[in-house]
Structure formats: structure tokens, C-alpha cells
């Protein structure tokens, strides 16, 4: 069993429901949706016209000249990392650069930069393609930019496993600390894929809901995990970064500890490139692995921030996983999908939901799942539709993420 204890000492996010952790968390607790009708001109040609844009544009926070050298996904990562860094009290803490690592993921990478430069190539010729295009669009750009900003000279990773990427980055950060490769890791995920091409592609594979895009439709009701009316996810954008740290290092510098990271589990379905295993066997193994790694008694698992994206099959499979792992204890477990409010941030999802999971433990309250008007009878879980207090004592919360390609990542956090 791993001996080094890992803790969370800082949080940051820019999300569809808030420009920082405090506003995002308050919006989640009050059940506020960040999904809107998109105002971009190009939505006219698409069957899906809704999405979860960030509540605060990064241009309002970042210096203009720095921002123009960053893909939007890197902009989100930089905004979230700055908050997490400050929140953890790392500024001026004397942290050795060689002991600071970064694991910041994205699912798709700098897709808007890539496609904007392709438009330029076609319209104006090769000479006009930006010399910054490659360092902006590369999938490790968000991680690399965060490392540059804070002088992180230990490992800098950008794991990709589609919609599980953000959670995989957190799992990787635990390993970096437990293997002794770093004392502190800036870990998270980011995504900026609200662009006509990925939206058309997701819509054509029938992954995105086409509901609520009609004139007069209500975009805020479309992301409805576990509801019988669910018919696909809503695309969101944003990023989140957590400061993970060895407990020893955190205690030595007197840092405030939000929660402990107990363990992580990673597995793959090897079932289908896009569909989940309908029985959720791979996800079950990942969750079991996370609990085993953290030496967690299933009876103490009282909260799950589910992956639940509002797709017909995936939401059911996740319910089966929780029953398989928790058994009778599943009845005392409060399950939520904050995607009902934020939409699905793809590679940013696991990180944003990790922030929500940590805040739920810290404040001992679960956010609601909104739009759950008629629960699917195939799902036997306790899913509150308004905020619900969590019990006192030593409690554990799970954060699940699953991605195209079959990836399953579960992370178990514990109260402190």
C-alpha cells in the first residue's frame, strides 16, 4: 500500500457557471445552469446551437499580449492555475522548481487554433499561417504554459484519454508524488472545443443532444443525466487545476488542506471506440482499484460526482458500476452529476468535477442534479434534485470519468 499521503491544498477553475471556485461552487449548490444558446454566427449551419461557454471570458483576466499567444484551452488552464497557485499559498513559498510538476490534460488540444489557421491558409495562403500555431495547438501546450508560468522543472505531462483526461491527470499527479518525483503537482484539465467542426462531428455521431436548439427552446434543461428525456450531452468549455501535494510537504509549510487524495484507479474497456461497455465492467474495476489503493471501506463512500453525461447508455452503465462496487452501501451514497449544470467539458470535465468533489467533502454538502424530472427506472441511485448535506466523520467521495477509447478513471478523495 502506498505510504506517501497526498493532499489537496489549492483549487482553481473557470467554468460555464463561474469565473472562479467560489462562484462556480455557489452556482452548483444552487442548481444554476451555465448552458445557453450560442451567439456565434456559425451556429446557424449546425443542428446543435447550445453550449456552456465560460461565465467569464479569459480576456477579462489575462494580459492581452500573453493571451494572444495562447490557444483558448491554454487560456483556461492559465486562469485556473493562477487561482490554484494563489489559493495554495505557493507564491513566495520557496518551493524548489525541481520538485514542482505539472499534469494538465486536454481531450482534443488546440482545435480552434488549428482550424483558424487552416481557414487562414485557404483564404490568404501559407505565408499568413501563424508562426505560433504549433506551440499553441500542441496537446501539451496547456501543461507547458503552466510550467513556464510557475517554473515547474519536474515532469510536465499532458495525458490524453478523451473525456477522462482531466481525471487521468489527477491520477498521474498522485503517482508523481508517491514515486517521489515531485512534492507538489499542478494537476487538472482544460477544453475549448466550442467550434463548428467538433460540434458538427459530435452531433453527427449522435453524442450531442439536438434538443433545445429550436427557436424558443430552453437550453438550460437539455443536460439531464438519468432523466428519461435525456438524449445526449451538451458541450461545455473551461478548465480546472488542483494543487496536489505530499502531506509532509503541506504540513511543513503550514498549508491549508482541503481533502486527502486517497487513491486512483485506471482501466480500459477494450469494448468499442466510442460506446461504453453496457455492463460497466471496466469502470467497476477502476472504482474498485481506487478504493483498494486508498484502503477505503466502501461503507465510508457517501458521495459520488458521477461522469453521467446525459447519454442514454452511459448513465445506466455507471449506476451498475456503483452497485457492483458499493453493494448495499450504495443506498447511503449521494450521487450527483454537475454536468447537468455545466455541460460536458470533455478533457476539462474530470478536473472541474474533482474541484466539486473536494468542495463537497470540505463543506459536507452535495450539489444537486438539475433537470431530473422523471428518473430512468433503470437507475437505482440516490440522486437529490436539491443540495443535500453529507454526514460528519471520516467520509470518502468518488470522482468518475470515462472517455472515448474505453478509458475509465476513478479518484477517491477523503475528508480531513
Amino acid at each position: 500500500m502506498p505510504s506517501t499521503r497526498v493532499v489537496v491544498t489549492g483549487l482553481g477553475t473557470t467554468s460555464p457557471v463561474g469565473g472562479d471556485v467560489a462562484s462556480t461552487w455557489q452556482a452548483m449548490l444552487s442548481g444554476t445552469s451555465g448552458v445557453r444558446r450560442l451567439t456565434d454566427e456559425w451556429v446557424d449551419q449546425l443542428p446543435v446551437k447550445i453550449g456552456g461557454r465560460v461565465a467569464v471570458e479569459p480576456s477579462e483576466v489575462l494580459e492581452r499580449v500573453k493571451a494572444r499567444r495562447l490557444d483558448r484551452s491554454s487560456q483556461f488552464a492559465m486562469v485556473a492555475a493562477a487561482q490554484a497557485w494563489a489559493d495554495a499559498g505557493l507564491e513566495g513559498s520557496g518551493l524548489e522548481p525541481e520538485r514542482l510538476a505539472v499534469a494538465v490534460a486536454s481531450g482534443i488540444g488546440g482545435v480552434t487554433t488549428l482550424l483558424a489557421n487552416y481557414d487562414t491558409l485557404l483564404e490568404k495562403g501559407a505565408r499568413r499561417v501563424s508562426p505560433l500555431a504549433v506551440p499553441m495547438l500542441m496537446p501539451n501546450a496547456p501543461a507547458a504554459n503552466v510550467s513556464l508560468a510557475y517554473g515547474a522543472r519536474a515532469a510536465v505531462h499532458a495525458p490524453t484519454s478523451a473525456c477522462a483526461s482531466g481525471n487521468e491527470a489527477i491520477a498521474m499527479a498522485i503517482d508523481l508524488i508517491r514515486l517521489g518525483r515531485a512534492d507538489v503537482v499542478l494537476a487538472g484539465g482544460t477544453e475549448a472545443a466550442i467550434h463548428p467542426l467538433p460540434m458538427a462531428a459530435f452531433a453527427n455521431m449522435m453524442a450531442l443532444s439536438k434538443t433545445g436548439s429550436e427557436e424558443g427552446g430552453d437550453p438550460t434543461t437539455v443536460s439531464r443525466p438519468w432523466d428519461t428525456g435525456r438524449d445526449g450531452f451538451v458541450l461545455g468549455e473551461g478548465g480546472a487545476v488542483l494543487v496536489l501535494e505530499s502531506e509532509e510537504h503541506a504540513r511543513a509549510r503550514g498549508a491549508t488542506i482541503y481533502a486527502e487524495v486517497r487513491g486512483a484507479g485506471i482501466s480500459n474497456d477494450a469494448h468499442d471506440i466510442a460506446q461504453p461497455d453496457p455492463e460497466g465492467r471496466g469502470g467497476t474495476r477502476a472504482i474498485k482499484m481506487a478504493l483498494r489503493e486508498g484502503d477505503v471501506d466502501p461503507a465510508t463512500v457517501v458521495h459520488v460526482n458521477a461522469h453521467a453525461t446525459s447519454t442514454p447508455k452511459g448513465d445506466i452503465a455507471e449506476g451498475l458500476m456503483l452497485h457492483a462496487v458499493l453493494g448495499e452501501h450504495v443506498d447511503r451514497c449521494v450521487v450527483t452529476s454537475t454536468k447537468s449544470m455545466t455541460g460536458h467539458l470533455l478533457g476539462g470535465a474530470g478536473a472541474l468535477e474533482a474541484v466539486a468533489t473536494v468542495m463537497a467533502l470540505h463543506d459536507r454538502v452535495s450539489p444537486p442534479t438539475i433537470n431530473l424530472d422523471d428518473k430512468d427506472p433503470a437507475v437505482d441511485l440516490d440522486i437529490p434534485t436539491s443540495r443535500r448535506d453529507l454526514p460528519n466523520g471520516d467520509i470518502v467521495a468518488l470522482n468518475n470519468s470515462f472517455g472515448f477509447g474505453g478509458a475509465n478513471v476513478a479518484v477517491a478523495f477523503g475528508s480531513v
Partner: protein
Amino acid sequence: MASTEEIRADLAEIVNEVAGVDADDVQLDKSFVDDLDVDSLSMVEVVVAAEEKFGVTIPDDEVKNLKTVGDAVAYIERAQG
């Protein structure tokens, strides 16, 4: 035909947009690298924007000779001439 000062002022606007340098600091005697902190990738962006703005071509081989703002303005004047 634009005057030297008009070209300098337009170029200063480009350098401000690309690199965030105060346009008033973009004077003929200033070195892009040493005085204005314009790195090599930003310099490529400045050159490409200048080509579009002034309707000239500045070959890659020529860019290394444009050390100061004055060098660039003189090149553009000649190329336009």
C-alpha cells in the same frame, strides 16, 4: 507613397498589437530584440503583418538584417518604391 514617419507609425501599431510594446517606444533607432524585447516568433508575426499592411514581400533571408525599426522602415520604403 507613404512618408518614413507614416511607415514608422503603422509599423509601431503592428509591434504594439503583436508584442504589447508601447507604440511610442517603437522609434527608428530601437533594436527589435535588444530594446523592444520582440522574440523571433513575434518578429515573424510582425513581418507577415507588415507585408499585408504595406503590400510588400520581405523574404525570410532578409528578416535577419532588419535589426532596428529604422532597418525595417527603410526596407519597406525601398520595396514600395
